[in-house]
């Protein structure tokens, strides 16, 4: 009798355990799930050809992911969303204007831009870090206001100092009066210099990607078993991953053989590889001593200080890395767009990057590469479909456009609010 009771009890306990886990997973990923649903509704309403959406999406994800990934390290270091990546974007634009002025074209021009913007970005990042160390606890609002402030200085530089204090004679770039840079600059010199190095159709990429990954998995397994002589512990995980990669390859092969329109989707391989390298860099840096310090500082500044970490220095380094990455990200963005809006291209960078990261499911204290990539895809799907969806639904494309800016602002607001609320509840629990 008693045995039976125990059995029933265990059953009762086990069942909600699974349910609880599922619920937890659902709750943790509620934001991306919600946005996947919104995106699907948008795609359905917009009635655009899928090929168009896919093409646009590939271009947008390729040019925007880098700058979103630049936000991850400050989050790790507990500094929240670094809206001051606007300064990094400015560094990138300063370099790109200089390179356009010197007429260095193609890949050489791009590499010069990257080289030139880095010292600027390091200086800007250092100053930002110093400022944020003075406003601990209010980093996000400070970095945002700093973005506006720097924008003022940037306008002062390019509207009034170029041509007066900084000598520059270039009728293509400078306004007719001889002072100030023009509002829009054609970047034909570096346009597509990274994207067009090597392009491959999506299907071929899928096959190559699948084969490569399966090969890597097999080699890794072989290395474990035959050279390290250790038994592989989670064979299932290996099998699942290999299966997924193999499936990607097979799907690619299948589509390629069916004369489908999707064969026409071309991927900018080099850009994607650069983004992949940044992802690897982010994974790598977490495992170094510096990355460990980022995380310690992010967890608790006081404990970090007590354990002998230079908290202020670590925070400055985090911001410098983020700013430099943002500068490079802006260059990748601009070489794809092909025209520089001198006084506007950088303004919204911080906000849209932050929105993308948050839509992917990140929070102010936790952000991963997966969040960044997922968020970029979702936000930009929304961007592509919302004007048309708004037009079809309510007869006005403007509504869709306003809706997407509402989503961008709203998601940041809600996520900041939720985070602050959680923080408050936790600190209340601690004291009581």
């Amino acid at each position, binding site marked *: 009798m008693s045995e039976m009771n125990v059995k029933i009890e265990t059953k009762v306990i086990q069942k909600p355990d699974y349910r609880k886990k599922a619920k937890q997973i659902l709750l943790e990923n509620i934001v991306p799930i919600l946005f996947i649903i919104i995106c699907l509704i948008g795609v359905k309403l917009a009635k655009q050809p899928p090929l168009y959406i896919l093409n646009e999406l590939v271009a947008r994800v390729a040019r925007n992911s880098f700058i979103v990934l630049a936000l991850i390290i400050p989050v790790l270091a507990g500094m929240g969303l670094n809206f001051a990546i606007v300064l990094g974007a400015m560094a990138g634009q300063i370099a790109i204007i200089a390179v356009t002025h010197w007429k260095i074209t193609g890949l050489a021009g791009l590499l010069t831009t990257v080289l030139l913007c880095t010292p600027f970005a390091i200086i800007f990042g250092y100053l930002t870090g110093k400022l944020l160390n003075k406003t*601990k606890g209010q980093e996000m*609002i400070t970095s945002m206001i700093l973005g*506006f*402030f720097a*924008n*003022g200085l940037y306008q*002062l530089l390019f509207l009034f100092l170029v041509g007066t204090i900084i000598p520059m004679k270039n009728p293509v770039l400078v306004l007719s009066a001889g002072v100030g840079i023009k509002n829009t600059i054609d970047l034909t010199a570096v346009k597509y210099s990274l994207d067009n190095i090597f392009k491959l159709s999506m299907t071929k990429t899928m096959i190559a990607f699948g084969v490569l990954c399966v090969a890597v998995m097999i080699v890794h397994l072989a290395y474990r078993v035959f050279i390290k002589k250790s038994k592989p512990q989670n064979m299932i995980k290996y099998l699942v991953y290999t299966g997924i990669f193999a499936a990607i390859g097979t799907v690619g092969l299948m589509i390629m053989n069916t004369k489908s329109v999707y064969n026409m989707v071309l991927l900018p391989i080099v850009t994607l590889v650069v983004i992949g390298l940044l992802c690897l860099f982010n994974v790598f840096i977490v495992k170094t001593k510096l990355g460990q310090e980022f995380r310690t500082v992010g967890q608790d500044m006081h404990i970090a200080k007590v354990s002998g970490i230079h908290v202020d220095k670590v925070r400055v380094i985090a911001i410098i890395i983020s700013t430099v990455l943002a500068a490079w990200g802006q260059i990748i963005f601009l070489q794809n767009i092909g025209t520089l809006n001198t006084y506007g291209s950088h303004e919204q960078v911080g906000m849209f990057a932050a929105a993308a990261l948050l839509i992917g499911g990140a929070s102010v204290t936790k952000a991963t590469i997966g969040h960044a990539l997922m968020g970029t895809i979702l936000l930009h799907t929304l961007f592509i479909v919302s004007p048309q969806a708004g037009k079809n639904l309510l007869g006005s494309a*403007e*509504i869709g456009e306003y809706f997407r800016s509402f989503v961008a*602002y709203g998601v940041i607001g809600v996520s900041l609010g939720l985070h602050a609320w959680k923080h408050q509840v936790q600190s209340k629990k601690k004291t009581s």
Partner: protein
Amino acid sequence: MREKIRLVVQNIGLPRIIIISFLLTLIFGAVVYKIPLDALTTDTLVRFGMNGVLVLAMVPCIQSGTGLNFGLPLGIICGILAGLISIEMNLVGFQAIFTAMLISIPLSAISGYFYGVLLNKVKGSEMMVGNYVGFSVVSLMCIGWLVLPFKNGEIIWPISGKGLRTTIALTSRYDKILNEFMSFKIGGVVVPTGLILFFFMACFLMWLFMRSKTGIALKAVGDNPRFATASGIHVDRARLIGTVLSTVIGGIGIIVYAQSFGFFQLYQAPLYMAFPPVAAILIGGASTRNAKISHVIMGTLLFQALLTIALPVANKLVSEGNLSEVARIIVSNGIILYALTQAGGGE
């Protein structure tokens, strides 16, 4: 002597000294370039009055400890909505403007209440959350302006008959009605008596409120929430009152602003409207924890004088581009950054 100078500097504050000397340089520049000073004074007075109420809206928020109210666009939207309703009701003159204010009060109070409840849930990051609440409300209302069922021809687009105009002229309604009330001329300077009287009256009411029991409770909460709790004050309630009050004043402020400006600006226009008032009160000497009526008056006067005089001087200096706009961006955001570094920086 040096000690004395240091004391004076400490009392006035370094940023204010910089800004006052900048202003004096500008006035000197205006004299040199022979820009008529009386017209500049008139403009300064008008802008002082029209922005003053919005700056005043910062006081209850700062006093009750929620920091700078970056969510001011919330109140501004309510004010605009009330203003449009008064036009829709086909009212003219004083009747229209006071109806607009009356309508705006419940609207702002309700939205301010929810905003206040939210701010109580996010103690410590009110400014950031408030900022994004403001931004999202403005962009949500962009959709709202497109679909709201207004019928009056002055408000909606004339051809399509759908959606509201981006700017709504008040020429036939209450354009400059407060400005011209009892206004008089001294030399070349026109004093907008009604406008300034209204502003001072609002300041006086706020001053009285701050000396009432509720006002003192508000201040106690802002100074030290723990001490306030210990003395039996409801912290959350006091913060709520501060936020509601701030939103309500914001709503009235935009109506005062619009009647002097001559237009209601819809859509994206209110997006950054919280920043100039924030900068103004900080220039006046307020911090993120402390604000007085004198800060409001002083700050608005300094900031608006700076903007008014900078424009013609900058245009004489560099004819191309908009140097004064750039100066505005740098000064206003610079002062906010300075205030943030002063607010319990470090740990």
